[in-house]
């Protein structure tokens, strides 16, 4: 491809970005890693062995105290509270994006019904995982 004056056109920096935007909708597990930067773990939802392996990986990460984030309703990013390995669902807080009303800690009820949760199937979302925090 030639640009103005017959000079070769440099590759557009947007080209790679567009490709990345497409991969945004993928499913699977992404882990922030020291040596790799970002590890992509993909699995075929129809392959039982691959799904079982992915479940074991997710359980292992939760056991290690890693933070898992998935997109809930309205594409809002929410931290995973639990993982139901039998059904393969991430349990996340429902309506996490709504602003919390300002209340003093004394007025806040300590007891009552537990916060509403919703579940997201592991094969339909991409989970991004961050290691335990060392502070700073």
């Amino acid at each position, binding site marked *: 491809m030639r640009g103005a004056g017959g000079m070769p056109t440099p590759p557009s920096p947007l080209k790679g970005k567009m490709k990345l935007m497409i991969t945004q909708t993928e499913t699977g597990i992404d882990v922030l890693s020291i040596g790799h930067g970002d590890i992509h773990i993909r699995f075929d939802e129809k392959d039982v062995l691959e799904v079982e392996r992915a479940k074991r990986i997710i359980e292992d990460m939760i056991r290690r105290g890693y*933070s898992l984030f998935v997109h809930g309703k309205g594409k809002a990013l929410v*931290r995973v509270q639990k993982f139901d390995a039998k059904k393969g669902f991430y349990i996340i807080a429902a309506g996490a994006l709504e602003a919390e009303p300002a209340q003093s800690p004394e007025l806040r009820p300590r007891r009552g019904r537990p916060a509403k949760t919703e579940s997201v199937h592991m094969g339909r979302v991409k989970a991004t995982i961050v290691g335990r*925090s060392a502070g700073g």
Partner: protein
Amino acid sequence: MSEEVQERPMPTYRQVAAKLKELATERGEWAGFPMMVEGLELCLEPRFPYDLRLKPKPAAADDFKIVNSWFSSRLRCEVVVGRDAAGRARFGYRAMNQAAFLIDTMRACDAWLLEAERSAIDKLATMLSHRMFTAYMLVGAFLETSKRSGVTYMFRKLRPTLALRPDGDEGMRILCGLCLHPVGYYAGTWAGAQTPTDDMVAHLLMMRGDEPKFWANANQHHPSNPACGL
């Protein structure tokens, strides 16, 4: 035998980092193994199963164990309280020099692999709007306002994330600098065990996904503290 050992060339930082990457994959350490860098103190998160720190020097007679420390904005230095070898409480001042932070942060670049940083940048690109990603590539920082709290965050490469709130008609007030590194960090620097962009991705994920936890886990630096990187 010892002569043979001496003759063997020492591995480079890059070779060690590549080997640690391999080992982490073998052992199922998903977040990876942090890299030791000579002259920098590696601080690991408490539950990390391996002690990868370099051996500390033997304690001198006048050394004391630090019990607590805090930054004094009046004295512009860190106040340190500790106990000496005899168990007596002592205190002292530790100068906080931003130039030293800068130079030591540069030294930490031996710990990171360029391909890891590239992969982290690719990840960040999927999470930001084109405008904010451009800002990151050109300036090394981008802004995002939380829909939950209304706090605006300035995510900066190799610096703590600044939390800002509107102050008055047009101005913004810096609440604090939030410093957080997954797995570990190098003391006295702005560098984490992960590559700089991976640290930013972690900040962004935590802010979007669990803002209260982000504030709870991060070290909150006062804007006047040199560690805040202003």
